[in-house]
């Protein structure tokens, strides 16, 4: 079986988003580090975020979904959403670059940049992730136009389906969106220890990130493209231990 008998132990998953609430029950105490990216004088800088807050609730929602599927995995939060909106694309890119350098095996990206100017920057980062054996799971965008890095071939791009089951996912042979996962009316964790019901590709991506985490725990030597192949091969209703 693709991931029978594993719970993600030994795998580190980074969530590049609005932050993750360390104390939220849905995260299960598995948040081991929290940083935020700020715009310095010139370039973005990564600083520790010891309070581990989530400014929206969205990142905690993603973390909760991943923890629900892979409760053994360690989580790192990279907050790229802050009060300063200048250069938000470069802040996002810097956060992603940092997460890759930290050796996270899986990175959840329920966000994207629409700036054509950053095409090259993201292309380079995504390639470096691939060669560093890091799997990027990226929410597809519902809005037409550029969306980086979700449109790049080496990422696992995910859209939402409406079957209320975290363990049901589909492979779509017509790119750019390659996988479909649970993303409609999903009960999720939210800000200040709260909960919410949410719909969007944003919530489908962490389901696949959780599944990918289990595959990586079960097959530690599998490269990103092998993990993707396994994910496609066992799609459509596979369950752990089945």
């Amino acid at each position, binding site marked *: 079986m693709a991931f029978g008998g594993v719970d993600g132990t030994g795998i580190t998953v980074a969530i590049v988003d609005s932050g993750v609430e360390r104390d939220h029950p849905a995260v299960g105490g598995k948040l081991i580090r929290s940083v935020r990216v700020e715009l310095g004088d010139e370039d973005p800088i990564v600083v520790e975020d010891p309070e581990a807050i989530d400014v929206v609730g969205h990142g905690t929602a993603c973390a909760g979904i991943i923890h629900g599927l892979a409760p053994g995995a360690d989580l790192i939060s990279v907050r790229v959403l802050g009060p300063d909106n200048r250069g938000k694309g470069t802040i996002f890119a810097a956060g992603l670059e940092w997460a890759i350098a930290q050796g996270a095996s899986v990175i959840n990206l329920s966000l994207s940049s629409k700036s054509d100017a950053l095409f090259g920057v993201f292309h380079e980062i995504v390639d470096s992730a691939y060669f560093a054996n890091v799997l990027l799971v990226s929410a597809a965008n519902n*809005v037409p136009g550029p969306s980086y890095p979700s449109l790049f071939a080496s990422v696992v791009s995910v859209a939402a389906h409406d079957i209320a089951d975290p363990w049901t996912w589909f492979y779509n042979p017509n790119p750019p969106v390659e996988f479909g996962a649970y993303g409609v*009316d999903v009960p999720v964790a939210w800000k200040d220890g709260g909960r919410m019901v949410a719909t969007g590709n944003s919530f489908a991506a962490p389901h696949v990130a959780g599944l990918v985490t289990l595959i990586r725990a079960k097959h530690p030597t599998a490269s990103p493209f092998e993990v993707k192949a396994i994910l496609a091969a066992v799609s459509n209703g596979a369950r752990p231990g089945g």
Partner: protein
Amino acid sequence: MADKPRPPIGPEALDVLRRIAIRGEIARRLETESARAVLRSVVDATVALFEAEAASIALYDPTTDRLVFEVAAGEQGQGVIGVAIRPDQGIAGYVFTSGQALALSDVASDPRFGRSVAEKTAYLPRSIVAVPLVDDHGTIGVLEVLDKRSQAAFSLRDIELAAVFARQAAVAIRASRVERDLASLVRATLGDLASSSGGASDAAIEELVQAATERIGGDDDSRLWALVERIARIRKIDPGRLELVSDLLDALVRESERDARARRRVRSGGGTAVRPGTASPGGSVGRDRDR
């Protein structure tokens, strides 16, 4: 599915589109505030088609680093106009910064949610869909729709549809910058709608564009356009005289309204005999007289 062309929208939607076109044309003739007028028509259409309690558009203002709610529609939406939030605040902030469309329900059950905006508007929605407004250079704002009356939550399809409206709003903003003509605005919108609903040929779209825009500015509406032209001229006069003109107009409008009420009373047979009179010049588009 895409093999057989089908009409992309029904008569009611066409009517909405026609009203959008008329508003767009008014805006063009007034030559000012055109973007805002079209944005307003986008939120009007959004509320109508979603059967939602409210819809609003917030645009990013780089000088203040704030998302500002520019237009809103629906009874529950009005309070939000002018509200400025930090671009990392709330759902609008998240959607703006992440570029990711999303929908939330069960919102009211969480008392912490969106308190800052809700306190300013005195309206806390149960459900919300928010999509980014995107142009060629990135995300410029957010379209939000609150509380669909028929359902407790918004669907994926709703997100996609809202994205089409957001696209229209983004086109409108661009249009205000480069003076795109009305027909191409409607055409672009329909093109988006058609591709998202998976049908409709170019010919069908062209037919709809014609249906929505034909005879705008023609004889049927000549009084309306005469009024619009006058207002356009008034806007250019000396500010000192503007108050006087505005007071005069006000008096004319009140006089016309009194007239119309009086005639209604006569027709319904109630009250004492009142001189029916005729519509006042300038202040009426003559609808009452035609009835």
